[in-house]
């Protein structure tokens, strides 16, 4: 889960990193009022995405009137599919130099990596491609942590205008904040060296590990969850992973890999999946809810049910499916592929209660569902 700047900066402040003063404004007047206490300000769109500056979502204001005008322009603006609903109005900082600092989970080294670059303000992807020699990285043994000696070593030899020690201290605090908050990414870009020689975090990106949310209840409510459709919200409440898509062939399967593959095979046969809906793992007893969800999407023309039991038992999933089907009595054509733990029992249940057999494999089931959705013979 991503945190917007206004919600991410307090994480840094709590770790002792300096951040500029600011006020969250939901309307232009509130942005204008902020100038009275903060002086000249920067008005910054709050959306859970980068490239806000390039999109015109960050503007300088010397006066209250300017702040009001900028806020009025920015609020309601769309930045990478996100509509701006609030702005962070922040005191101006005296920027001498801009650096880049981050800590993230690295699948390659299987450890946290602390990163630093003198090329602040740019996208990390651009730094990594354009000037990889300027991106310094330190993998960390998470059991031992990242101490001041390690931080000094990371910035050693960089000409940081006598701020090497202050930057090293900031990196240590950044790592501590990353650890304390189950971050998958905690990034300061730019990390600013002020004219007076201070070090401040001018922006902050914080992404909380979804698996850490349970034990981060204090900060979790400040995050910005992915925008979900009504059906996706329903799935989340039910503990079923559901992603709504554009197509008309509904998909119900167990396990992430199998569900993705069912979508792929529907696409392979010229159809368009209406959803990703996975009732595997711990959710395998929730087939009834799953069936109702996939059928409730408007415009669904056929359904492919693909069960391949391992941990999830086909017979349990089939019982759930049949319960929903007998209750809803839907008109749409449905095609089955069934294999794995509990498959023979599930196939017999299907025969006894719906009078149908599964198709020989998932290709056949997906193809039949695609043909049915197109109105052809199945």
């Amino acid at each position, binding site marked *: 889960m991503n945190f917007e700047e206004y919600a991410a900066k307090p994480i840094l402040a709590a770790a002792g990193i300096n951040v500029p003063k600011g006020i969250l404004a939901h309307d232009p007047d509130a942005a204008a009022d902020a100038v009275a206490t903060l002086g000249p300000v920067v008005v910054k769109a709050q959306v859970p995405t980068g490239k806000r500056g390039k999109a015109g979502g960050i503007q300088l204001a010397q006066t209250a009137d300017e702040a009001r005008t900028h806020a009025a322009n920015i609020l309601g603006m769309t930045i990478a599919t996100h509509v701006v609903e609030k702005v962070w109005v922040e005191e101006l900082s005296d920027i001498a130099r801009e650096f880049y600092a981050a800590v993230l989970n690295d699948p*390659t080294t*299987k450890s946290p990596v602390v990163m630093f670059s003198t090329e602040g303000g740019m996208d990390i992807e651009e730094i990594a491609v354009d000037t990889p020699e300027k991106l310094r990285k330190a993998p960390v043994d998470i059991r031992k942590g990242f101490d001041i000696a390690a931080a000094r070593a990371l910035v050693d030899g960089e000409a940081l205008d006598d701020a090497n020690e202050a930057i090293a201290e900031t990196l240590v605090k950044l790592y501590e904040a990353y650890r304390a908050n189950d971050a998958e990414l905690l990034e300061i870009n730019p990390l600013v060296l002020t004219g007076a020689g201070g070090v401040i975090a001018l922006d902050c990106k914080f992404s909380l590990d979804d*698996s850490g949310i349970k034990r981060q209840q204090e900060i979790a409510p400040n995050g910005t969850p992915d925008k979900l459709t009504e059906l996706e919200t329903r799935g989340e409440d039910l503990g079923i992973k559901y992603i709504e898509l554009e197509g008309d062939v509904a998909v119900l399967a167990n396990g*992430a*890999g199998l569900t993705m*593959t069912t979508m792929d095979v529907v*696409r392979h046969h010229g159809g368009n999946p209406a959803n990703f809906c996975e009732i595997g*793992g711990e959710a395998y007893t929730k087939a009834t809810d799953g069936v109702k969800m996939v059928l409730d999407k408007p415009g669904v023309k056929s359904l492919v049910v693909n069960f391949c*039991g391992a941990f999830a038992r086909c017979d349990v999933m089939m019982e759930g499916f049949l319960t929903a089907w007998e209750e809803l009595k839907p008109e749409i054509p449905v095609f089955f592929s069934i294999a794995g733990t509990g498959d023979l029992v599930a196939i017999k249940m299907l025969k006894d209660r719906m009078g149908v057999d599964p198709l020989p494999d*998932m290709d056949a089931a997906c193809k039949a569902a695609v043909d049915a959705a197109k109105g052809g013979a199945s």
Partner: protein
Amino acid sequence: MKIVRREHRVLVQGITGKQGTFWTEHMQAYGTKIVGGVNPKKAGTEHCGVPVYGSAKDAMEGGGFDATVMFIPALGVKAAAMDAIEAGAKTVVCLTEHIPVQDVMYFMAAAKEHGTTVIGPNTAGSATIDECFLGFMPVFNDRIFKKGNVGVMSRSGSLATLMCQNIVSAGYGQTAFLGIGGDPVLGTTTRDAIEALDSFEGTEVIVMVGEIGGSMEEDAAEYVATMDKPVVAFIAGGAAPPGKKMGHAGAIVMGDKGTYASKKKALEAAGVNVLATPSHVGDALKEAFGAIKQASRGVP
């Protein structure tokens, strides 16, 4: 890494729970040498016919063990894994989904230091056909798993089950199966699994079941390019929209990273037959075994 065999002594952490009990019984029936379980609250008792210890450390001092399989809730895994690693486990199979990644990296660091192989997290486990299995793959179903010459690895348990059924229905069988898991940070990578299967006795062809996200398939392609054995692959998620986690935390396309196209390209460049759908695996194996037979007859 070494694949767990029938002679290896296996501990079950969380043996007394519902799933722990259910799958321990299945593992025992198949031939897995279960030597004990762990539940601190039931230490000193017996469950599924084996002693229950207070910790993996106690189990090591008690009768000893080689590998452990954990049926432990997400927030308890770090402590359980550290217990097993510090006790001297050679292999730790971590089935649990939704473990905080920082916890995973913590016990991975310890595993590296102790020379412990971690399989998972978020996996259905591993199996050596007609010998033993650890986790919850339906190895005992002979329409899905049958002794043969195909080594199979997968990031997904459900998809591997389907693939294995297709392999058996096409008239082939498996040597061993390695489920590496659907998380972004994994103890055993695609490359590690393929290397292990490549050197596993009896394996003649390898089936790789990958998915979008990360760069493990691309990394594995470097090794595959050096192999003599044919490799057949299916990569799930070609139809997935970018920026969404497709059920697995590791299955997400970010920008141009982790895409289906990038994986397919890298694998094909390494000589891998990348399947359009899992149903094509039978034909691909026929072709692969045909080529091996011709080569052994000295036909170019």
